[in-house]
């Protein structure tokens, strides 16, 4: 197993074990600013881990970032790992990161769907859902981005357990979702939530379950526009942006709708690149450029959150 993060390849894809070992090493090597928290256990009883970045204080306002809720979207976990290292490397150097971390905490869940992710390495690279199973139900897995309370069971989610967008038997029925809900609710001071998916080059905000605009639509539109512009300037990758239901499609029971309805105004969902050729099978050579451009958008959102307390 890797003995330190310095020998870890940030431009390669990794197994769940390698990522969990990296998280241990990373938290050990950067214990002044990073720590590892277990927020729960997956359906198959794997630990659900979160990295906390903090420079002190207690109950500080915080930013939540999650990747990998859909198992096959490997570029998102890889982007999360790269971003974690960027945060510790930039603290004390980069003005935005330093200001953010001097006033706020950052929580990052890199493998939000550990069972599904392990399954993409062991059996089915194109698996999307988690691995939950229930008596009498023939198909396995729930789409973890349809299992949240807001708009649960509505259009854009499916009642059939065999569907890729199966919403599950009830809101937060899945331990992977319940763990995040419990953590964020108990924390009570999360001010921004960024959920990273792939693919199709989009930056979106609520709502997904209805065409109705959110009350903060104008601010979120303007922030998304700035973030997408910052992202574009890195490698020329063009993103579209807007609310989920008007930019992509109606989708119910999704993370960012729940976050927004829970009072987290700055809730965003990324759909990272595929450059129109690879879909979920983005070559590892594109990990670093993808993470580099995404970082500028994340920074834009973090800075806005810092400068607009609520």
């Amino acid at each position, binding site marked *: 197993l890797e003995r330190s993060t310095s020998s870890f390849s940030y431009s*390669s894809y990794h197994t769940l074990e390698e990522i969990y070992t990296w998280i241990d090493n990373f938290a050990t090597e950067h214990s002044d600013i990073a720590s590892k928290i277990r927020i729960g256990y997956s359906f198959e009883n794997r630990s659900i881990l979160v990295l906390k970045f903090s420079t002190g204080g207690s109950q500080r306002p915080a930013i939540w970032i999650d990747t990998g809720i859909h198992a096959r979207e490997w570029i998102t976990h890889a982007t999360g790992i790269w971003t974690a290292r960027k945060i510790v490397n930039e603290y004390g150097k980069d003005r935005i990161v330093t200001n953010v971390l001097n006033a706020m905490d950052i929580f990052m869940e890199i493998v939000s769907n550990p069972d599904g992710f392990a399954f993409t390495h*062991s*059996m*089915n*690279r194109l698996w999307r859902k988690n691995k939950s199973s229930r008596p009498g139900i023939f198909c396995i897995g729930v789409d973890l981005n349809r299992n949240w309370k807001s708009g649960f069971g509505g259009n854009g989610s499916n009642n059939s357990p*065999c569907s*890729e967008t199966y919403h599950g038997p009830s809101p937060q029925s899945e331990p992977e979702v319940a763990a995040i809900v419990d953590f964020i609710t108990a924390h009570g001071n999360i001010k921004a939530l960024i959920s990273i998916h792939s693919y199709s080059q989009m930056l979106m905000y609520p709502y997904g379950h209805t065409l109705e605009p959110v009350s903060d639509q104008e601010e979120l539109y303007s922030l998304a526009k700035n973030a997408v512009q910052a992202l574009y300037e890195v490698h020329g990758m063009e993103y579209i942006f807007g609310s989920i239901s008007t930019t992509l*499609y109606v989708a119910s029971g999704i993370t960012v709708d729940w976050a927004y309805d829970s009072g987290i105004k700055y809730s965003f969902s990324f759909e990272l690149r595929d450059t129109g050729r690879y879909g979920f099978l983005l070559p590892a050579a594109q990990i670093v450029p993808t993470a580099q451009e995404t970082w500028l958008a994340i920074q834009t959102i973090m800075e806005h959150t810092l400068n607009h307390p609520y």
Partner: protein
Amino acid sequence: QMNFTGDQVLRVLAKNEKQLSLLRDLEGLKPQKVDFWRGPARPSLPVDMRVPFSELKDIKAYLESHGLAYSIMIKDIQVLLDEEREAMAKSRR
């Protein structure tokens, strides 16, 4: 590991809502056969769908018979998966 030899990802450009619903119908016509990587959303956005090798002929005939323009985004999924696996092994070495 499941093998995806010969499976393709087709990129379909639906001209209108009617064509989008024809694509949505596919999920019912071919349950658990068609895997939408980018689901039918709006005419301005492409629909990407993974089609198992065994279903390719039927699905392409369905698209062509309904005038749905498509291109082959990934010619053989297993080729990309093998490359990905090799890259991981190399990186690990």
